[in-house]
C-alpha cells in the first residue's frame, strides 16, 4: 500500500515536472539576472572554495562561462551545494538551471531521469594507487593484494569486474566512508586504493609525502563527467552545449583570455566566426554576437581552466591525458562553429 502511494506521488510529481518543463529556461535566467548552478559540497579542482572563499574549479568555470555568454558577466552565478542524492531532484524541480557536479554520464541517467547531459567536461576513470616501495607497475600485478574500497559504489563493481576478467584474485577491505578508505590505505591496512583517478590524484596530494605513492597507468572504467540540464528545453540545451564547445574551440584556435583582444583582428576565418567578428552565431542561441568572445575574455579557454584547476602545476597535478584536444592525442573534440 505504502509502495503504491509512493509510486503515485512520484508519478504525479514527475508528470508535473514534465508538463511545466516547457517554460523557457533562458527567459527565466535572464529575468533573474543570474545562473543558478548546482555544484558539489567541495571537491578540490572541480568545485571548491578557494582561499578567498569564492567557488573555483573546472566545473565552476563552466558555470562562469555560461554566465559570461548570457550576461557578459562571469560572476552572475549563484551556487547551490548539492549532495549526490539530491542533485537530480534539484535539477528537475527547477531549483538549479544547470548541474555541474562531477556527474557521470550514463545511459540510464540520460534517458530515465528527464535530464540531458551536455557533454564531457572531464574524462575520468577508475584507477589504482599503490605505494612506490611495493614495486608494482601494473594493475595486472595486483592479484591477491588487499584493496581498500568504498562499499556499495560502482567503484567496487568495476574493480570486481576487472579482476574477474583478468583472472586475478580479488581481495577487498571494505569501508562505508571515503575518508575511512583513505585513512586505511595510509595506515597500511591495505596495499591498494582504488577510486576515480581524479580523486586518487586529489587524495594523493594530501598525503604527507605524495611522491611515495604512484597511480598505476590502467584505467578500468569510463567516467565521463559533464554538466547536465533539464530535458525538454532545446534552446537552453544548445546554449549549455555550445558554451562547452566554445571553450574547446577557443583552445583549438589558440585564443586565450590573454590574447583574445588581439585575436579580434585575426585573419583566420574560424577565429573571426568564434569571436563574432564575422557572421552571427550568438543571436540564434538567444545570446549576443560576441558570446564566445565574452566566455574567453572572462573565463578563458578549456586549457586555461584545466591548467588553473587540475593541471600538473596545481596540487592535484593531473596530466591532460584523455582530456587533451583530439589533435594532441586526447578525445576532447568540438564540432566547428560555422
Amino acid at each position, binding site marked *: 500500500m505504502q509502495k503504491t502511494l509512493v509510486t503515485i506521488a*512520484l508519478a504525479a*510529481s*514527475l508528470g*508535473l*515536472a514534465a508538463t*511545466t*518543463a516547457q*517554460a523557457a529556461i533562458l527567459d*527565466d535566467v535572464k529575468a533573474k539576472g543570474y545562473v543558478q548552478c548546482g555544484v558539489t*559540497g*567541495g*571537491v*578540490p579542482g572541480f568545485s*571548491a*572554495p578557494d*582561499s*578567498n*572563499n*569564492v*567557488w573555483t574549479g573546472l566545473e565552476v568555470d563552466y558555470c562562469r562561462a555560461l554566465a559570461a555568454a548570457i550576461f557578459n558577466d562571469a560572476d552572475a552565478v*549563484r*551556487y*547551490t*551545494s*548539492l*549532495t549526490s*542524492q*539530491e542533485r537530480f*531532484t*534539484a535539477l*528537475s*524541480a*527547477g*531549483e538549479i538551471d544547470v548541474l555541474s557536479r562531477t556527474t557521470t554520464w550514463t545511459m540510464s541517467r540520460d534517458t530515465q531521469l528527464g535530464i540531458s547531459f551536455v557533454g564531457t567536461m572531464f574524462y575520468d576513470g577508475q584507477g589504482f594507487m599503490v605505494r612506490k616501495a611495493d614495486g608494482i607497475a601494473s594493475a595486472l600485478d595486483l592479484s591477491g593484494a588487499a584493496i581498500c574500497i568504498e562499499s556499495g559504489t560502482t567503484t567496487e563493481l568495476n574493480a570486481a569486474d576487472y579482476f574477474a576478467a583478468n583472472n586475478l584474485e580479488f581481495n577487498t577491505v571494505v569501508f562505508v566512508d571515503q575518508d575511512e578508505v583513505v585513512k586505511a590505505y595510509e595506515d597500511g591496512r591495505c596495499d591498494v586504493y582504488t577510486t576515480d583517478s581524479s580523486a586518487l590524484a*586529489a587524495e594523493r*596530494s*594530501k598525503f*604527507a609525502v605524495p611522491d611515495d605513492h604512484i597511480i598505476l597507468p590502467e584505467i578500468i572504467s569510463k567516467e565521463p563527467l559533464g554538466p547536465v540540464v533539464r530535458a525538454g528545453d532545446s534552446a537552453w540545451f544548445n546554449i549549455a552545449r555550445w558554451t562547452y564547445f566554445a571553450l574547446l574551440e577557443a583552445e583549438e584556435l589558440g585564443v586565450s583570455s590573454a590574447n583574445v583582444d588581439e585575436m579580434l583582428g585575426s585573419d583566420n576565418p574560424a577565429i573571426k566566426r568564434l569571436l563574432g567578428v564575422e557572421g552571427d552565431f550568438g543571436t540564434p542561441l538567444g545570446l549576443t554576437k560576441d558570446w564566445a568572445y565574452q566566455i574567453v575574455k572572462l573565463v578563458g579557454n578549456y586549457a586555461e581552466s584545466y591548467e588553473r584547476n587540475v593541471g600538473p602545476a*596545481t*596540487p*592535484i597535478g593531473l596530466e591532460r591525458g584523455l582530456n587533451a584536444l583530439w589533435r594532441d592525442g586526447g578525445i576532447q573534440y568540438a564540432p566547428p562553429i560555422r
Partner: protein
Amino acid sequence: MTDFGFVRADMVPSKPAPINTSGVGAWFRKNLFATPLDGVLTILGLVFLVWIVPPLYNFFIGHAVGPGGTVEECRLENAGACWAYISSEMEFFIYGFYDIPEQWRPNIVFALGALLLIPLLIPKVPFKRTNAVLFLLVFPVVSYFLLAGGVFGLKPIPTEKWGGLLVTLIISVVGISCSFPLGIILALGRQSKMPVIKTLCIAFIELIRAVPLITILFMASIMLPLFMPQGTTVDKLLRALVGVTLFTSAYMAEVVRGGLQAIPRGQYEAGASLGLGYWQRMYFIILPQALKHVIPGIVNNFISLFKDTSLVYIVGMKDLLEAVKTKNDTALEWQSANTATTGYLFAAMVFWVFCFGMSRYSMYMERRLNTGYKR
C-alpha cells in the same frame, strides 16, 4: 570532713594531632593511600596521567603550530596541531561564502545579538519586557535585512552564501526561540479537552517524534521541490529552519507535558476558583511551576538542537562542522598529517563552549528558581 578529692580546675592543654593524621603525609595517606586498593588506583592514575598528558600537551601546545605559522611547519615530522590552518581559514568557518568585504554585517548581527541576549539572561538587569521584545521581534527582522541585504543600498547576499558559525547560530537561535513556545502550545493542546485540537497535537507530536531529524531534512530538501510548482523555490535555510523547529517543538512538547503532569489537580482548581480563565490560569499558576520542574529537560533539548544543526549539511548548507569538513577536503595548500584533526578539534571546541555555556546557565537558573523546595 577533709578535702581529699582533686578537682581539676582547667582543661588539659590539647596536644597537637598525631603526626600521622596531620600534614602533607597524612593527607596523602588519607585521600590517596587509605587502603591497598586505593594505593593501586592512585598509582595507576598517576601512570595514566604521565602517559596521556605530555603527548596531549605536545599536540595541543608544545609542538603545535600557532596562528601565523606556515604549512611547512605543520608538515614537519613531529608537528602537533596546526592552529595556523584554523586562523587562516577562520573566515570560512565563521561566515562561509559570505562576501569578505561585507563581513561587517554578520559582525554587527553577532554584536547586536550578544548585546541584547546577555542582559536578558542576567536576572538583575531591568527592562526585561522591552529587552525581550527587542530580542525576539526586532532583532530577527533587523538581522535578516542586514544579512540578506537588498535594502538601504546593501549588497544582496543570497542565503546560499551564508555559512559556518553564522548559520549554526541562526538555526539554533531561531530554533530555540520558536520551538519553545510552539512546544508549550503543543503540550497544552495535547492535554486539551477539545477533541480536534487534542487529536491534531497528538498526531503532530507522534508523527514528528517517530522520524529522525535527518529524514525530515531529507524530505524538505528532496521531496518538497517535487510537489511545488516549477520555478518556485523555497529558500534552503528556511527549509532547514522550519524542519529543525518543528522537530524540536515536538520533543519540547513532551518535556513540557511532563512538567504539567507534575502539577497537582488542586492547583488548576485553585486557579479556577479564583475566577481565572484558562490562559490566565496557565500563565500565572500552572506554567511557572511546570516549566521550573523541567528546566533540565528543556535545556537538554536546546543542547541537542544546537548539535543537530550540523545535520543541515543534508540540504547542502554549510554549518560550522560542514564548513570545517569542506576546508579539510579542499584546502590543498594546507594539507598536512594533522590538518583535518585540528579542524575537527576546533569545531568540537566551539560546540563545547556553547553547549557547556547553556548547561551551566541552566544549572544557575534551576538554583535561582528552586524557591519552593529551598531549605
